[in-house]
């Protein structure tokens, strides 16, 4: 018996929203685990910074400016990945936005369309386009949110989009299962990221949030790494269609 190594040697991973927060944490961890990494986000320059960090770890990296809400840009980023990196083994649909509407009536058409485009439309198109290139053993990881199963008024659009992402996860797992491509989602709870810090008005609010989490704290961005490596690697070879909670016990 050879125990699983959780390594990604020889594999190429495409991570959307890869320039900061959880996406950056996964990009650097995947590189440390042996993968070459394509860092995609709307901000090409920020992607280049993370790509440089990946190269400093001794892996190849490609930075691609990409707005996942646009169908053709999803196709382009996958085409560039395959053309320049030679293959695609792992797709992480991490890019997401969570604008807060004042009320249900106050949800603008623009807020609705943008939230659905980035959180659901993009992952759906990227999964469809990427699957043509993913080999047997390939893995798609959708970064979902605890809001998808515990929605609230101020997350209503985001929560609906992420619930859609959960449904996409299960449907894609069915379509690609017989080809040996696994599709899973991570249901993220509260993480200490830049966007979280910006969305929290005070330390007191952060403390209140933490007190409602059974583990009693907000997660650091690096705590997504273990779950992501598990799902990306052969260590989870018999796991697909799963929605894995990473939320300190909330859901």
């Amino acid at each position, binding site marked *: 018996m050879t125990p*699983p190594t*959780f390594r990604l040697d020889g594999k190429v991973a495409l991570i959307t929203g890869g320039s900061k927060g959880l996406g950056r944490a996964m990009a*650097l961890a995947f590189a440390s685990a042996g993968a070459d990494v394509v860092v995609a986000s709307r901000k090409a320059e920020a992607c280049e910074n993370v790509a440089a960090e990946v190269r400093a770890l001794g892996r190849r990296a490609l930075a691609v400016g990409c707005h996942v809400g646009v169908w053709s840009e999803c196709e382009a980023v996958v085409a560039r990945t395959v053309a320049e990196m030679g293959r695609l083994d792992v797709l992480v649909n991490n890019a997401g936005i969570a604008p807060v509407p004042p009320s249900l009536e106050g949800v603008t058409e623009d807020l609705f369309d943008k939230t659905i485009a980035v959180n659901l439309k993009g992952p759906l198109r990227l999964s469809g386009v990427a699957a043509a290139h993913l080999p047997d053993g390939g893995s798609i990881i959708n970064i979902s949110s605890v809001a998808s199963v515990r929605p609230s008024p101020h997350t209503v659009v985001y929560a609906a989009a992420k619930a859609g992402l959960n449904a996409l996860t299960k449907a894609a797992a069915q379509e690609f299962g017989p080809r040996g491509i696994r599709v899973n989602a991570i249901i993220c709870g509260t993480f200490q990221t830049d966007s979280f810090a910006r969305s929290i008005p005070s330390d007191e609010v952060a403390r209140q949030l933490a007190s409602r989490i059974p583990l009693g704290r907000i997660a650091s961005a690096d705590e997504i790494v*273990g779950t992501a490596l598990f799902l990306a690697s052969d260590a989870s070879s018999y796991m697909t269609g799963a929605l894995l909670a990473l939320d300190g*016990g909330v859901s």
Partner: protein
Amino acid sequence: MNAGVSQLFDLSERVAIVTGATKGLGRSLAEGLAGAGASIVAVSRDQEACSRVAGEITASTGRPALGVGSHMGEWDALPALVETVRDRFGRIDILVNNAGINPAPTSVIDMSSEYLDKLFAVNVKGPVRLAGLVAPVMAVRAKGSVINVATVGAYAGGANFGAYTSAKAALINFTKVMAKEWASMGIRVNALSPGPFNSTMMQGAAKLDTEFSTRAGAATLQRRVAECDEIIGAAIYLASDASSFVTGEDHVVAGGMLRA
């Protein structure tokens, strides 16, 4: 962080109790955790088999292993198991409640009191009691991981397997309860629910129904039955710091076999 990636799944210095460790999934779980660096306490009813498996694990992984005969159905015998482990290793970091029984299929109409009591004693009461005894030991170091092995059948229920699947459903509920009760003690508690594996239990079912394994494999999205070693990755993930923010969650490893 990056230097830590290789250590994230490392179990060196940790002590793991694995029940039902002599065969099938339990055997893979015990050797897999040892492969990740843990010292192992291999538990089953059969002391001789436990000692043999402990020796085999040490031989293949180089890790210390102790075989302890103990019956999960015997509530009052479990404190002695925990004391034996403390005497030998001085600490407990990981508990894998894997021992379980699923004897002859029985319909609800034909189910006897003895049958129901026996299945709940081994599949629920034993694991809950053992976890309850181990948690205070883990709390001394303010860190620990309990993994309760259930089954994907706990969600859909299985005709003629009701005592087994409902006992495992109870174990999943207890997993959530323990996660909430022990979070402040630094102890994480998760469930691991296998689908069709080429396990001792599956081989038993195949003796009664030769098509059982084929049908079970076909019911997965990956269209196959897994080998026992494919459970190891999930166990190392849940046992190690790789899942530091994960608790109270069931992890279905079933090739995408749907929960319902």
